[in-house]
């Protein structure tokens, strides 16, 4: 039984490590901040929960269980908040590649609230943030 649990724990950590690798590949290859964030959020929630499950399966103690639940719970509550703040800053500082977007719902809502949207930046440029 403990052998099965050991192998299962290692398997869960292996899956978590694979998600980390996938996120890093996406981070290196995707073209703008929002799509990189899309890749980056995978190991932060699902990957970390897999890793935490793997640790608990191979340690098998209540003390480890408490810490592991705390880690997963805190990450589940804080990761969306951080991602929201970062993407909000990305949008407001105009670092969105608008030529890559199919649809910009936030721009429509902003227009409804009395804001206008200037012309899209020319193809290939990543906006004014590139200059610094």
């Amino acid at each position: 039984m403990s052998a099965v649990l050991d192998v299962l724990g290692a398997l869960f950590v292996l899956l978590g490590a694979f998600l980390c690798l996938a996120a890093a590949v996406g981070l290196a290859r995707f073209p703008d901040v929002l799509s990189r964030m899309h890749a980056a959020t995978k190991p932060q929630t699902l990957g970390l929960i897999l890793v935490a499950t793997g640790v608990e399966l191979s340690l098998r103690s209540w003390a480890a269980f408490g810490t592991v639940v705390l880690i997963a719970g805190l990450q589940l509550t804080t990761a969306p908040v951080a991602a929201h703040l970062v993407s909000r800053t990305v949008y407001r500082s105009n670092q969105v590649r608008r030529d890559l977007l199919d649809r910009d719902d936030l721009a429509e809502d902003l227009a409804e609230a009395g804001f206008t949207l200037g012309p899209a930046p020319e193809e290939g440029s990543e906006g004014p943030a590139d200059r610094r």
Partner: protein
Amino acid sequence: MVDMVVMVMVSASALMLGVAAVLTVVRMSRGPSSLDRVVAADVLIAVVIAALALEAILNDHSTTLPVMLVLSLLGFAGAVSIARFVADRDKATRWDVESQQPPPGAVERRPDAGERR
């Protein structure tokens, strides 16, 4: 037999985490904006947490678990504070200083618009 299977899995995980860390550091150094670096730092923290977990199951001890806990909170605090810092600084760069015009594509308030709801 079981030890060997676990060892192979742990080695494969360590290899993937190593490659992931290198790619993340590459993105961190290339940028181009500081927000790219924040996102990369978040992923790097996730990679380090996974590496600590790997060490815990390899040596069968739980000393690194509090470190994982602190790291996950540290990533959150770092991302939030840098996002706020960049937001404050980019207010000045959203408008072109010389022409007093917003850069192309910027969100601009219509002068005739009412109060925001």
